[in-house]
């Protein structure tokens, strides 16, 4: 493993996002949807609190519960939709263009290659997340939200997005068709979201297993301002496993 090699790959792929329309489209789409959601959440929150005051029903809803949690919860869904477009090209395109031969015949190990690619998509996701800081800033200017849940929401969202990235990179390594890679990433990501639905029918032991496997159940704590080690462990293992599987897939292509 060499930091320099990882950086070389990450730099090239991160730039490629911006020399093609991908980054602009994904970021613009993301910001439009998020902006709309923020506006909707905010006005709904205002209306709700106005009602509470009008009828003297007590304290009302906090900013954390009324805006932060739904906003970042929705952001996770948007990432589920958008990450496939970010990751689908990473290996599939290299295969299609035969540039994988350049990478594979350069003195760069597979691990460097995979980590470099992961890092490039991680940077793009970070840029997207970074742009959303404008919403908490608006809230801090106009109101008095709690900082803790915002920070944990960001940590949780970043970890969750990295899980999608890892999944997406894995599917991208399987095929040279970007559409196939993207569709599989979306389907698998959605599956890992919804897998806990079956937990009630599955009985106590399997129900727990399915709940534990579900991505969303691990995110919920972050949304409430909690950083739970088991959640962090789950996300990190998910990411690590996806990248490990990518390594196995790429290695196996050489042996075929």
């Amino acid at each position: 493993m060499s930091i320099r090699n990882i950086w070389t790959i990450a730099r090239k792929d991160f730039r490629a996002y911006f020399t093609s329309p991908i980054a602009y489209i994904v970021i613009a789409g993301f910001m439009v949807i998020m902006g709309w959601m923020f506006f909707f959440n905010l006005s709904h929150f205002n209306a709700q609190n106005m009602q509470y005051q009008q009828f003297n029903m007590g304290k009302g809803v906090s900013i954390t519960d009324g805006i932060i949690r739904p906003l970042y919860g929705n952001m996770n869904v948007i990432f589920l939709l958008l990450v496939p477009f970010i990751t689908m090209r990473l290996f599939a395109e290299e295969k299609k263009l035969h540039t994988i031969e350049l990478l594979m015949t350069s003195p760069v190990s597979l691990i460097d290659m995979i980590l470099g690619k992961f890092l490039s998509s991680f940077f793009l996701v970070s840029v997207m997340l970074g742009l959303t800081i404008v919403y908490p800033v608006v809230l801090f200017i106009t109101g008095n939200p709690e900082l803790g849940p915002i920070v944990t929401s960001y940590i949780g969202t970043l970890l969750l997005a990295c899980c999608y990235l890892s999944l997406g990179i894995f599917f991208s390594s399987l095929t040279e068709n970007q559409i196939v890679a993207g569709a599989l990433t979306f389907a698998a990501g959605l599956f890992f979201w919804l897998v806990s639905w079956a937990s009630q029918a599955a009985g106590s032991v399997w129900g727990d297993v399915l709940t534990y496997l579900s991505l969303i159940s691990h995110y919920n704590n972050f949304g409430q301002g909690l950083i739970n080690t088991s959640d962090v462990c789950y996300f990190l293992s998910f990411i690590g496993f996806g990248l490990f599987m990518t390594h196995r897939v790429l290695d196996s292509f050489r042996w075929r």
Partner: protein
Amino acid sequence: MIQVSHLTKLYGPHAAVSDLNFEVKKGEIVGFLGPNGAGKSTTMKILTGFMPATEGKVSVAGFDVFENPIEVKKNVGFLPENPPVYPDMTVQDYLDFSGRLHQIPKKNLQSAITQVLEKTALTQVRKRLIGNLSKGYRQRVGLAQALIHNPQVLILDEPTVGLDPKQIIEIRELIKGLAGDHTVILSSHILPEVTATCQRIIVINKGRIVAEDSLQELTARIRKGHIYSLMVKNPVQTGVEALRKIQGIHSVTAAGPKLVVEISPHAQEVRDQVIETAVKHQMGVLEFSAEKVSLEEIFLQLTTVENPSETTGATA
């Protein structure tokens, strides 16, 4: 510089390459010649460490390809069949990236790029997107990529495909110029290609080496004598018969006005007699010239004549 022994590569039950043995010395230019699907690309991909062999031992620049692939890759420049270029990068950025991949120190990177751009005559298009370049330019960008880290060994898979005749000559000169400092293996199914650049030729067919020698040796091996062509106005039968009777002439084949005369290598002086006889029979000599054996012929002979014994040997 390159040693290959008992190299075998199986794709499922199908052997793409079987029991290949050869050696390339430092500074040599060796041509891999074979029809499509002969196993050239497979061999090259194994040499570069792109894929492992099923069996056998390959060492490049003193390192074993299986045990030390990273070291091998540092010393090898590879131009695959399809130039591995990114259409949405400029030539300059692409070479910058491949230079970094090959771990050229940052302070030498720009000078390495400038040098290689000059060598491959790409300086003018350095700022253009590769996707907008013609096939010939892309091929040269691929070649520039293989040269950027000044590798000891260059492996070029069909380097002049898609180039126009002028560019082909330029690339050939470039490759020739690399001999001495670099060891070059290039593959081709276009035969004059190999004749023009290579000192030694390895002919591969169906994954096996059928011949390995210099062009002269290969030519001599196939032909007993030397071939001349005699163009005449009237190819009269009596004249042809008379020619056949001359001592030292192996055969005379008439095809219209063209007579193909094969003369034993030890009886070159009979050429006078050929002319005399033709004149005597009033055949009206138009032209008398030595015919070079083309590589095509050698190739066909090697792959068709020698093969039956090999295939029967393999099935038995």
